[in-house]
C-alpha cells in the first residue's frame, strides 16, 4: 500500500478541513468574540509547527509506523501504553465526527429516519473502503473528492458579498485582550487538525520528500480556509451571533442569496461535507486498525478494521443515550491535559530521544 505525495495532500487537507468546519470556530468565538480570527490564526500556526515536528519525527523513522518506532524509543511496555493514548484519541475523533454527522442529518433533513440507519450506512461505506483497499482506496477517493470539496468550500464563502460588513471585526484586540484571545486559541486549536495521524500515515508514503511537502501544504491550505471562514463568518453575522453558531459553515451557506434567485445552497454543501467526512473517517479507521494490528501482533488488520467498526457503532449508539459522554469536548481534562500531551509534549519527547539516538549513533560509529 503506497500513497503518493499528491494523494497525501488531499488526505490531510480534507481531514483537516472537516475538523475545522465542525467545532473550533465556535469554541474560539465564545471566548474571543470578534478577535476569534486571531485565536484561529494563532492556533493554526501552533498546529503547523506541531505538524512540522511530527514530520521531523517521521523522517527520523522513515520505514516504521508509530507503533513500531515508539518501541525503539521508549521500550515495549511504556511504548505500548503511550501508543494507546493515540488510539484513544483517534477513536474519540472518529466517534465525534460520525456522531456529529448523524445528529446533523437527522436535525436538518432526515427527521424520521432512525439514527442507526444513517450511522450504519456511513460506517459500512467506510469499513468497506478500508476493508477492500486499505489506505490506497481511501486516498484514491480523496484524490477525486478533494478538488470539488476544497473548491466548493472556498467558493461558497464569497457568495454573500452583500451581506458582509468588514467593520464587524473591529475593534481588534481592545474588547477581548490577550488573555481571552489565547484562551480561544487554547480551546480551539485542539480541534483544528489532527496532526498525529501523520505518524501512522507517513509510513505509507511512496516518496518521503514529496509526501512531507504534501502534508505541510495540506495542513496550510486547511488552516488558511479556517481563518478565512472565521473572518467571513464575522463579516456576515457579527461576533455575538457567531459565538452561538454550532455549525457555522452550514449557517453561512444558508445566508447566501444571489439576486433572490440562488438560495438554499446548503443542498450542495451537505453532500460534499459527507464525502469529506467519509475520507476523514476512512483515514481514521485505517490507521486505527493497522496500528491495533501491529500493537496486538495480530497480522490480519482487515479483521480488526471490521471489529473496530462494530465497537465504534456500539459506542456511538450507547453515547447517543448518554448525553454526558458526548458533551465532554470542552472539558478541561481533554483540552488542558490529553490534547497538549498528545500533540505537543509527546512529539517533542519523541523528537528529542530520536535526535539524541541519531547523534549517538553517528558519533559512536567510527568514521
Amino acid at each position, binding site marked *: 500500500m503506497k500513497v503518493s505525495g499528491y494523494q497525501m495532500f488531499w488526505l490531510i487537507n480534507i481531514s483537516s478541513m472537516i475538523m475545522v468546519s465542525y467545532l473550533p470556530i465556535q469554541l474560539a468565538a465564545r471566548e474571543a468574540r470578534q478577535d476569534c480570527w486571531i485565536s484561529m490564526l494563532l492556533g493554526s500556526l501552533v498546529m503547523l509547527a506541531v505538524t512540522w515536528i511530527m514530520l521531523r519525527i517521521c523522517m527520523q523513522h522513515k520505514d516504521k509506523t508509530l507503533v513500531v518506532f515508539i518501541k525503539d524509543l521508549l521500550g515495549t511496555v511504556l511504548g505500548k501504553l503511550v501508543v494507546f493514548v493515540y488510539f484513544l484519541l483517534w477513536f474519540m475523533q472518529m466517534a465525534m465526527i460520525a456522531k456529529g454527522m448523524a445528529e446533523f442529518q437527522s436535525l436538518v433533513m432526515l427527521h424520521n429516519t432512525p439514527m442507526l440507519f444513517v450511522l450504519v450506512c456511513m460506517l459500512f461505506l467506510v469499513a468497506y473502503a478500508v476493508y477492500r483497499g486499505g489506505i490506497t482506496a481511501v486516498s484514491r477517493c480523496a484524490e477525486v473528492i478533494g478538488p470539488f470539496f476544497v473548491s466548493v468550500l472556498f467558493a461558497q464563502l464569497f457568495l454573500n458579498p452583500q451581506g458582509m460588513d468588514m467593520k464587524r471585526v473591529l475593534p481588534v484586540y481592545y474588547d477581548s485582550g490577550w488573555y481571552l484571545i489565547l484562551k480561544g486559541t487554547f480551546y480551539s486549536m485542539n480541534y483544528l487538525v489532527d496532526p498525529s495521524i501523520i505518524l501512522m500515515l507517513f509510513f505509507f508514503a511512496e516518496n518521503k520528500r514529496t509526501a512531507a511537502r504534501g502534508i505541510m501544504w495540506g495542513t496550510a491550505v486547511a488552516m488558511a480556509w479556517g481563518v478565512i471562514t472565521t473572518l467571513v463568518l464575522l463579516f456576515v453575522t457579527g461576533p455575538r*451571533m457567531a459565538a452561538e453558531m454550532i455549525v457555522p459553515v452550514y449557517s453561512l451557506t444558508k*445566508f447566501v442569496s444571489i439576486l433572490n434567485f440562488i438560495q438554499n445552497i446548503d443542498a450542495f454543501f451537505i453532500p460534499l461535507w459527507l464525502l469529506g467526512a467519509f475520507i476523514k473517517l476512512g483515514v481514521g479507521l485505517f490507521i486505527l486498525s493497522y496500528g491495533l494490528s501491529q500493537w496486538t501482533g495480530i497480522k490480519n488488520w482487515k479483521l480488526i478494521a471490521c471489529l473496530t467498526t462494530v465497537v465504534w457503532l456500539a459506542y456511538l449508539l450507547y453515547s447517543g443515550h448518554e448525553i454526558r459522554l458526548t458533551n465532554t469536548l470542552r472539558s478541561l481534562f481533554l483540552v488542558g491535559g490529553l490534547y497538549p500531551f498528545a500533540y505537543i509534549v509527546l512529539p517533542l519527547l519523541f523528537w528529542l530521544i530520536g535526535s539524541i539516538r541519531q547523534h549517538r549513533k553517528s558519533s559512536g560509529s567510527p568514521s
Partner: protein
Amino acid sequence: MKRFFMLLCVLLMVTPCVSGCSDFVEPNQLAFVIGTAVDQVQDGSIEVSLQVVIPSQLQKGNSTNSESFIVISAKGRDVFEASQNIQRKIPRRLMTSHRILIAIGESYFQKNELNLLFDKLARDPSNTLRDVVILIKGGRAKDFLRLKHPMEYVTSLAASKEMNINGLQDFTSRQLVIDSLSQGTRPLVPVFKVEHKTVSSQKKSEGIPVFAGFAVLNKKLKPVGFLNDTECAGASWLAGKGMFQGITMPWKNGKGMLSFRLSRLDRSIRSVRGQDPKQVVLAIKAQAYLLENTASLDMTDMNTVIDVQKYMNAYIRKDLQATVNKVQKSGSDVFGIGEYLHRKHPIWWKRQRDEWDANFKTVQVTVKSDIQLRSVGVIGGELK
C-alpha cells in the same frame, strides 16, 4: 452469477433506505409558507398566522376570481407550538425555507420580548434568516396577511417588493438580530399599515398595505418612537440602510419648487479630530438629478447651477439634522454611532456601553452633506 444476483437483491433492498425515502416529501405534499404573522392575544399566548400559496391557482396566471393563497392561524405559547397547531389543520407539510416576510403586530412588540422570537429563527434550521421583519401598525398582523393585493398575488410579496423598489436594504431578520445584539446600535423596523383607498373601479377595495415609516426600538426592543413618511427616508439614509428618494424643496424666494432624484446614497460617521468622542459628524453623500423645476430658474447658467447645488445641500442638511434630533430625543441610537465609537474609542466605550441609551442623548451629532448635482435634466431653461 449467483453471487451477483444476491448482491443485486441486497443493493435493491438497501436503495430505498440509503436514499432517505423514509423522509421523502414530494413537492405536492408541501405547503410553501410565504409570510408569517405573529400577534399577541388576550390570554397571554401568541397567535401565529401563516400565509400559504396555493400553487394550482398561481399557474392560471390571473387571480381575479379565486384566491391564490390561504391564511391559517393558531394559538400557542411559543412560535413552534402555534406552528404545530397550524400543521394539524392542513394536509401538507409546512415549509418555511422560502418565506420572505415576517409581520409582527404592534401589540406583540409592546407586550413581549422580541428576542424570544430570535431563538426560534436562529435555532430551527428550517429558517434562513433571509426574510424581512416588519411591524404592522394599528391592527393585527394576521389581517395584513389576509388582505388581497390588487397587483401581487400575496401581500407579503407586495410588501417586500415595495421595500425593494424603494431602495430599503438590510432589513432582513439576520440584520435585525445583529443590530439588537450589538451594544452600539438599535434596530429600525419597517412599519406597514393598511390604507383604505379605492384602487379599482369595479369593487370596493378592502385596503392595501403601504409602507409607513420606521419604528425605533430601544435596548429592550420595545418601540419608543415612530418615524413618519417624510422622516424615514432621511433616517434610513443616515443609518446607512439606503433608500432611493426623490426630494422636493421650495426655492429660496418661495416661488416654485425644485425636485431632485437622489441616487448612490452613502454615509459615513467620523468623530471630530482632536475632540472628545462625544462630538460626531454624520457625513452623507449622494448624487442628485434635477427632474422638475417650477421656480423659473435658467439651468444653463452656471452660477444658478452652483447656487442650486449649494441651496439643496443646505436644505437637506437642515432636514436631516431635524430627524437626527428627533431620534436622539428618543434615546435609541439607530444610526450605529455607538458602534462606530466602540470601534474608534474602544476603551472609552467600555465606560459608556451600559448606559448608552442615556449617553446617546448627550452626543453632539452634526450632519454634513456632500451632494453633487450631476445633471439638470434634458432641457436647460424653462419651456415658455
